[in-house]
């Protein structure tokens, strides 16, 4: 952590709230363009030595994520269900945000994802809609994100991928046993497996070393700096400009507006719970698809009594979930899937929604293990294995090294009733209203999951699995891909922000993160979140240069 110290009472050019996957990009691009930037991050500023290979800390406790003990959260599935304490939403809570502990999967959206509503048709009772941008609008920024952050992959290997302006900056990671088995089986079935694009370095890149295959990507921080988080890639570059100050431990409670209805800055608690008002000319909220709407809803004023950017009441609505389904297979020989990165091969053959199936849906399927030792022992074994005793222990000795899984990343239709709100009673450790979440999947999403799970079982069978078991699909679990809630659009009555993330209510307030998403595509939102961040950053720098941001 280095760089300038800006005064609170003098307006900086840009105040970025949330320094994660999007905010990290934002602080780098805006400071490099010559503007003063303060980044407020609620979590700590960590280094490689702060991480460890500690499954308990990162899988079973909120080592790098929001902690419900200090930030309580409530959840219900249906409108008539009572709200109950549950960690419905999980996000990375440190400088670098979710890009620090994510698995590293880095899919671009398909061209069809941006106008899928026009292609597929209306789905009654949903907010299924086209995006106000097309893939071509975002392509240069996908390319820039891959280049600036460091992404490994093989262009042209996926026949379903959208057009690319250039190759990945790094070659793909080699296939592990799950990848080899998956590739062989998928080809046998006439499918098109290809090397997974990942934000993990297959070779040294821009002063960072290649991945050492330790196997601790998902949920862990990378001790090698080989995972291309914003923390190790662009944030240090932002700080080198001398115009960017990152303030960890800063918990924002309100965005202030001035008499003209423009954002004036933000009030936050610093690490010692001192209340600070940082003034800014432009406020950019990158706090994720759950905390961004929460902050807007907390930012009530005389002018905006329903919360900021919420004149139409849509802030927090159309929340989408990272729905997926998982099927495991046991193989004759050891795979040792715990070594190396999580995913090395996948298919997009079933990605596109096909009306002939009789429902909306589809997904990408990847080969992975998705477990560490204890999580496997608790949740990974097939249902016919006893839960305790000598047989249980014996099974662990075989299954842990001989199991792989197939995970589908599927659709979550946007529906207005699925939402993030403020709880009227429960408060967090700072005395602020707790988040409460309502989410129930659309019946088509559930049909899609069941259909995809059949495809997973087919592939595992073709791969020669000795035994196949399906994990339940009716439990949505915790949502880690936070999408929707402040959707973009051209109509101020139907959306919260425009195509550049600018709120319809306040001209100098921008939202850039998963909250912008109009559809969920097939999950894996990080590449699109970061492409949107690069696009909006360029737009902001241009507008600032032209003196349009005041």
């Amino acid at each position: 952590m280095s760089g300038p110290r800006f005064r609170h009472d003098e307006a900086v050019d840009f105040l970025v709230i949330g320094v994660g996957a999007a905010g990290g990009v934002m602080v780098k691009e805006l400071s490099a363009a010559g503007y003063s930037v303060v980044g407020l991050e609620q979590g700590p500023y960590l280094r490689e030595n702060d991480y460890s290979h500690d499954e308990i800390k990162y899988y079973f406790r909120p080592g790098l994520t929001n902690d419900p003990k200090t930030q309580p959260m409530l959840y219900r599935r249906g409108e008539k269900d009572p709200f109950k304490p549950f960690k419905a939403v999980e996000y990375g809570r440190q400088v670098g945000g979710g890009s620090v502990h994510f698995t590293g999967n880095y899919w671009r959206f398909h061209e069809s994802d941006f106008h899928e509503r026009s292609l597929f048709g209306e789905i009654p009772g949903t907010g299924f809609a086209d995006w106000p941008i097309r893939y071509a609008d975002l392509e240069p920024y996908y390319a820039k994100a891959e280049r600036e952050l460091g992404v490994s992959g093989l262009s042209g290997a996926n026949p379903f991928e959208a057009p690319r302006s250039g190759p990945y900056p790094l070659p793909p990671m080699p296939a592990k046993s799950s990848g080899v088995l998956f590739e062989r089986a998928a080809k046998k079935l006439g499918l098109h497996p290809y090397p997974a694009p990942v934000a993990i370095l297959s070779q040294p890149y821009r002063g960072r070393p290649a991945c050492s295959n330790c196997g601790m990507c998902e949920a862990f921080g990378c001790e090698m700096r080989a995972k291309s988080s914003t923390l190790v890639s662009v944030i240090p570059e932002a700080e080198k400009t001398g115009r960017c100050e990152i303030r960890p431990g800063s918990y924002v409670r309100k965005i202030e507006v001035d008499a003209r209805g423009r954002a004036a800055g933000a009030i936050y608690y610093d690490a010692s719970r001192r209340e600070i008002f940082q003034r800014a000319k432009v406020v950019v909220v990158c706090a994720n698809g759950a905390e961004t709407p929460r902050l807007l809803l907390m930012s009530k004023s005389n002018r905006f009594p329903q919360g900021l950017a919420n004149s139409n009441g849509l802030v927090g609505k159309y929340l989408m979930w990272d729905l997926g389904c998982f099927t495991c297979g046991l193989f004759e020989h050891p795979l040792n899937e715990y070594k190396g990165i999580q995913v090395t091969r996948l298919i997009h053959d079933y990605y596109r929604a096909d009306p002939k199936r009789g429902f909306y849906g589809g997904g990408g399927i990847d080969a992975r293990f998705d477990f560490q030792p204890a999580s496997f022992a608790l949740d990974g074994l097939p249902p016919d294995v006893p839960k305790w005793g000598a047989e249980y222990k014996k099974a662990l000795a075989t299954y842990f090294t001989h199991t792989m899984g197939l995970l589908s990343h599927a659709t979550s239709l946007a529906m207005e009733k699925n939402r993030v709100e403020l709880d009227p009673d429960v408060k967090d450790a700072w005395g602020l209203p707790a988040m409460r979440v309502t989410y129930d999947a659309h019946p088509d999403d559930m049909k899609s999951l069941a259909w995809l799970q059949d495809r997973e079982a087919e592939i595992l069978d073709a791969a020669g699995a000795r035994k196949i078991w399906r994990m339940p699909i009716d439990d949505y679990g915790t949502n880690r891909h936070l999408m929707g809630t402040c959707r973009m659009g051209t109509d101020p009555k139907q959306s919260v922000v425009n195509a550049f993330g600018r709120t319809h209510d306040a001209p100098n307030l921008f939202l850039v993160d998963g909250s912008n998403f109009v559809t969920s595509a097939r999950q894996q939102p990080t590449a699109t979140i970061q492409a949107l961040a690069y696009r909006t950053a360029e737009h902001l720098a241009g507008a600032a240069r032209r003196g349009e941001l005041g």
Partner: protein
Amino acid sequence: MGLSRRDWVFGSIGGAAWADVLAAAQHAHESAEARPTARLAVLDRATAADVEALAEQILPSGDGPGAREVGVIWFIDRALQTFDSDRRADYRDGMAEVRRVRVKLFPGSASVAALSDEQQKQLVRSIETTAFFGLLRQHTVLGFLGHPKYGGNRGQAGWKHIGFESRMAFEHPFGYYDARGRE
């Protein structure tokens, strides 16, 4: 943590910078230094003996060390002292219920630990669907397969049992099929 000098001196990793692997491995090694066994901090000795007997039924010895030998009870006691201190009441209430079930099943028995192996199994079968058994099973597994710095998984015996190694670097191929895929 499981990474000996030999591993990194004689290994070779494609593009990983050795200084980085080394620094990370050294850091991991330091944070995994064994702690001296402390006295029980939360559980009394009688309760600990009963909890340990139940944990041993979940992951018994034979076919390698079981819950008792890897120090699961130390893990549980430490968890209840630290990150799971809010589960103490669950243990108090849960073990009280275990006692009621035990006395009903085996009138005149003194403790779980004093039951025969078959009696303990019978006891577990009658509590295996309870929330408390779920918690105990989770803690037992974490004590068996979690990082040794928490007091369990002594000598990494749990990891050895399932075939897991915690290292800062691995080389391809990792398994049978990727090795075969290269031929």
